[in-house]
């Protein structure tokens, strides 16, 4: 019984290490305890470099250049924000692949403050070419996404969170969860349950994806009329560009909801931050119904 997304990741990654000698795991102390059994079994493929995130990503690039498949894991602000140039050069510019798996998301560690938040991780990867981004909404979506990512050679980011929906859904593509008429509301990952609660009784279609990159623009075009609402668990507007491109040939309106840019300088809980960013059910309902 997995107790959360991180545990699902540890279980699945440990299984991949046992099953495929191409798999390597690169850590910078975060979650090292959870991987100790795997490290004892595969000491040359479970590599904890210490608190050295630039090296963590550089090592992943070097491993990939020798034909291995590195899985890289840390807190989102450390694996993405801190090591951005290593992601750009040691992976992308080398034409090397890796699977980056983060925990922490936008404000899972709200009580730790802004240093441990990464609302901008997906936007940062959007500056680079060729990244697939998975934002699972439930722990049971993690294993399939990770196994598929590990089987490839490309660049994949899997963004785990302690915020989850009550049930797992199909994590790929854009799939309708509730049909309606007046607008299409796209919920990414853990935003689905708040969106469903916020839109109860509203005449809107709610569609879910846990794979915002590449965004399923074919389904978006098929499901959207003229009014689209994006609800993302990272920086508001991160996917606006892709919606605008997908609907460039038709007049449309877009409401893009997500985490605000302003640093709140408050601690509290993830639920507090969701409320402050207008991403709880009440805040979403106010934004969406006001816009409709």
């Amino acid at each position, binding site marked *: 019984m997995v107790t959360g997304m991180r545990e699902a990741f540890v279980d699945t990654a440990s299984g991949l290490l046992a099953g495929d*000698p191409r798999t*390597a795991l*690169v850590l910078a102390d975060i979650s090292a305890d959870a991987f100790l059994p795997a490290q004892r079994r595969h000491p*040359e*493929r479970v*590599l904890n*470099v*210490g608190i*050295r995130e*630039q*090296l963590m*990503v*550089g*090592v*992943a*690039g*070097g*491993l*990939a*250049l*020798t*034909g*291995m498949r*590195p899985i890289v894991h840390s807190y989102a602000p450390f694996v993405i924000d801190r090591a951005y*140039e*290593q992601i750009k*050069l*040691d992976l992308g*510019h*080398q*034409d090397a692949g890796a699977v980056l798996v983060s925990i922490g998301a936008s404000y899972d560690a709200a009580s730790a403050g802004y240093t441990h938040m990464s609302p901008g991780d997906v936007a940062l990867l959007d500056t680079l070419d060729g990244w697939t981004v998975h934002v699972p909404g439930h722990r049971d979506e993690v294993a399939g996404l990770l196994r598929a990512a590990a089987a490839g050679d490309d660049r994949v980011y899997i963004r785990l969170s302690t915020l989850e929906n009550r049930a797992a859904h199909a994590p790929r593509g854009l799939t309708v969860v509730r049909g309606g008429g007046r607008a299409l509301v796209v919920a990414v990952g853990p935003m689905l349950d708040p969106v469903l609660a916020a839109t109860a009784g509203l005449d809107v279609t709610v569609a879910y994806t846990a794979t915002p990159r590449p965004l399923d623009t074919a389904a978006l075009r098929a499901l959207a009329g003229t009014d689209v609402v994006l609800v993302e668990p990272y920086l508001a507007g991160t996917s606006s560009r892709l919606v605008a491109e997908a609907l460039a040939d038709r007049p449309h309106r877009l409401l893009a909801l997500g985490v605000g840019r302003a640093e709140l300088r408050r601690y509290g809980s993830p639920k507090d931050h969701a409320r402050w960013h207008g991403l709880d059910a009440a805040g979403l309902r106010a934004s969406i119904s006001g816009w409709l």
Partner: protein
Amino acid sequence: MTTTTTGAERLPALLRRLTGDEKHSPSAYSTLDVLWVLYDRVLRVTPATVDAPDRDRFLLSKGHGPAAYYAVLAAKGFVPEAWLDDLAGPDSRLGHHPDRTLVPGVEIGSGSLGHGLGLAVGTALGLRAQGEQARVYVLTGDAELDEGANHEAVAYAGATGLGNLTAVVVDNASATHGWPGGVAARFHGWSSAVVDGRDHDALAAALTGHDGRRPHVVVARVEPKW
């Protein structure tokens, strides 16, 4: 058609094709002798084995000013000599920083300083995990060591005894604040050799002087840049 295994005496002519400069002597290139000795005497890699899993790896971390690198690759037959005549042109595969996807035999794209050592550590770990006996050489400059990313790699490789890794630091005393106590003293847990970066026999001995249990650093001292 020139033969691909000519000696070092051809390097000045190859460099002139890259730079168009008739006056520069080979000594203007701080890395030239190290690169020649590596490719001529040390590295187990040839144009025929650039994709072989068990080849030795050479990673040029200090990617700026790669004329000496390209000249050596051409002299050894990794790239056609004709490529040297259009350095950084719109259709050239050779730029002022190398791109591994464009140049046969080039293991990493570099230019932004401080990336090669981390990639080299990962490459060495990957070879070790796959049971390959190949060795990884990475070339940096003394000023490049200012970049903090290097220190993550140096400390980790030293602490874990990464025995299939050799760093070559071409020291032309160009680091703005210098390295008091010497460059080699910063490589804790490594074996080290400090040699004249123009002495081919001394370089060859130092570059093969690893013990296999620790990473090895060769500091190749050349004329100060300033």
